């Protein structure tokens, strides 16, 4: 479903701030894979997701989504394949607009935006149903401005928007990190539900090792822009925090400066 082929990305090349964020990274996701991504600060996790989303073009390498080479496709065109949720709950939705308007924009992801006057009655009904499934009481607030919602509600809404039009790939970049623990847990539950119900192929970055282990069918770890761990199948099911750390030491032979962040 997703294939990243030998991509490299260097920021600020040729300056004193030169930073090789991705180093000849390759990764292949099968349809329905739910991959959790861990790694220390600056490991290149966000950069990898941004490469897939098309925020900028990689220096080297290619990205395929569903067999299509999207390496040169601009971000807004690539969006038709992708659902995205960001770390900042404030930017995944437009605060100045109503809940239903946000959903209607998401519903048309990948379509041409016409001059049709919008939101049909039928559409509104379907939004109401989907919102009810979130269990946050938003189904009665279709006309409320999104800016009035809490961070958790906005993140849940963003999640719904990301999956409203079934994407080929769902990209989640620490989408619960800015929420309080209780809300974070709830949004994560919701994520799992949406991913499973729609059988979405998913990349989820998290700083919480327990979540990374508990969710998904595959876990990868990045370090210095390289893929250093890739655990799937039966092995993934029986992971513990200790076994992941042990594996990390095994492959890197390094003491892990950042395990406090990894342990969440």
């Amino acid at each position, binding site marked *: 479903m997703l294939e990243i082929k030998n991509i490299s990305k260097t920021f600020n090349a040729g300056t004193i701030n030169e930073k090789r964020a991705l180093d000849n990274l390759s990764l292949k996701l099968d349809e329905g894979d739910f991959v959790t991504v861990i790694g220390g600060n600056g490991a290149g996790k*966000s950069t990898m997701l941004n490469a897939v*989303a098309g925020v900028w073009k990689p220096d080297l390498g290619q990205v395929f989504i569903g067999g299509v080479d999207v390496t040169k496709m601009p*971000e*807004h*065109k690539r*969006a*038709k394949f*992708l*659902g*995205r949720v*960001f*770390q*900042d709950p*404030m*930017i*995944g*939705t*437009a*605060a*100045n*607009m109503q809940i239903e*308007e*946000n959903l*209607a*924009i*998401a519903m*048309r*992801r*990948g379509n041409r*935006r*016409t*001059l*049709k*006057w*919008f939101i049909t009655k039928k559409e509104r009904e379907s939004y109401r149903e989907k919102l009810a499934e979130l269990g946050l009481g938003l189904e009665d607030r279709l006309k409320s401005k999104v800016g009035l919602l809490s961070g958790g509600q906005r993140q849940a809404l*963003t999640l719904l*928007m*990301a999956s409203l039009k079934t994407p080929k790939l769902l990209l989640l*970049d*620490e989408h619960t*990190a*800015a929420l*309080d*623990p209780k809300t974070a847990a709830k949004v994560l539950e919701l994520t799992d539900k949406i991913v499973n119900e729609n059988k979405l192929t998913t990349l989820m970055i998290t*700083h919480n090792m327990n979540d990374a282990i508990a969710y998904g069918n595959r876990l990868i770890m990045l370090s210095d822009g390289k893929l250093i761990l890739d655990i799937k199948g039966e092995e993934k099911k029986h992971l513990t925090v200790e076994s992941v750390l042990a594996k990390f030491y095994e492959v890197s032979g390094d003491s892990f400066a950042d395990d406090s962040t990894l342990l969440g």
Partner: protein
Amino acid sequence: MNIDALINGLPGAAAQGLIWGIVAIGIYITYKILDIADLTVDGSLGTGGAVCVMMMLAGYSNGMSLAAAFVIGMVTGLVTGLLNTVMGIPAILAGILTQLGLYSVNLKIMGSRANTPINPNNYDLLVSLRNVKNVPFYENAIFITAVITLVIVAILYLFFGTEFGCTLRATGGSEAMCRAQGVNVEFNKVVGLTISNGLVAFAGGLLAQYQGFADVNMGRGAIVIGLAAVVIGEAIFGRIFSNFALNLIAMSLGSIIYYLVLQVVIWRGLDPQLLKLLSAIIVAIFLAIPYFKGKYFNGVILARHSGSEKGDAENAGN
């Protein structure tokens, strides 16, 4: 300081306020909807005035001349939009560059004259400061501009309610959201700037007719006057009006109030030379209010978060 002098001046102030209300609606599109401070308007207002007057002097009809002002105004917005999106120049600077260039363009449009009069006796003007009182209502500049404003509001309301128009409104709300939902943010900005400056130039055409001349300096400070109308309109009507069309009308009302207040201030004996300073101060104060409010509210949010999970603040920027 007799009250008659004030009352006599009010209809004119209302008419001017209505015309500037169209400018304010244009500025609302860039400043509020797209979240861009577009300084092109200081130039495009004059462009509209120059184009309209020159076309009328050349014998074109009123409607044609105003339409031309609108279209040429759109081109000025297009230039700023392309400077911003294709050439990567920050929006503020892009607007300043276009505005500066337009000074020369406006002079050339008027045949190298800084001021071009148009005599209401010889031309069939749509609006004129002679027609603000003691004329049949359908010739009254206030009535005519009010009708034009309502038509513009209706069209914009319909447009911003379409699939495409809705993404324009979202662009200023969150670019990240738009990109994630497949919206071409750059294209939208160009479209917004184009429409906005079309409206401003159209208003420039009306203003030139109203005052009976086009002047190369007529747009100086337009952004500030327009913003004054926007902030006044929002401050007074923002809470009562939630509908988009009403928000646009609030801009027009804000502009009328602004001009009425100016009229009163002048009547009270303020030196007219100080008007621009006064406008700048009013706008500065109003623009500062949301900032201070925002500071206060952000403080609350941060306090809530730091109680739950440390490090959020540092990570939030990634």
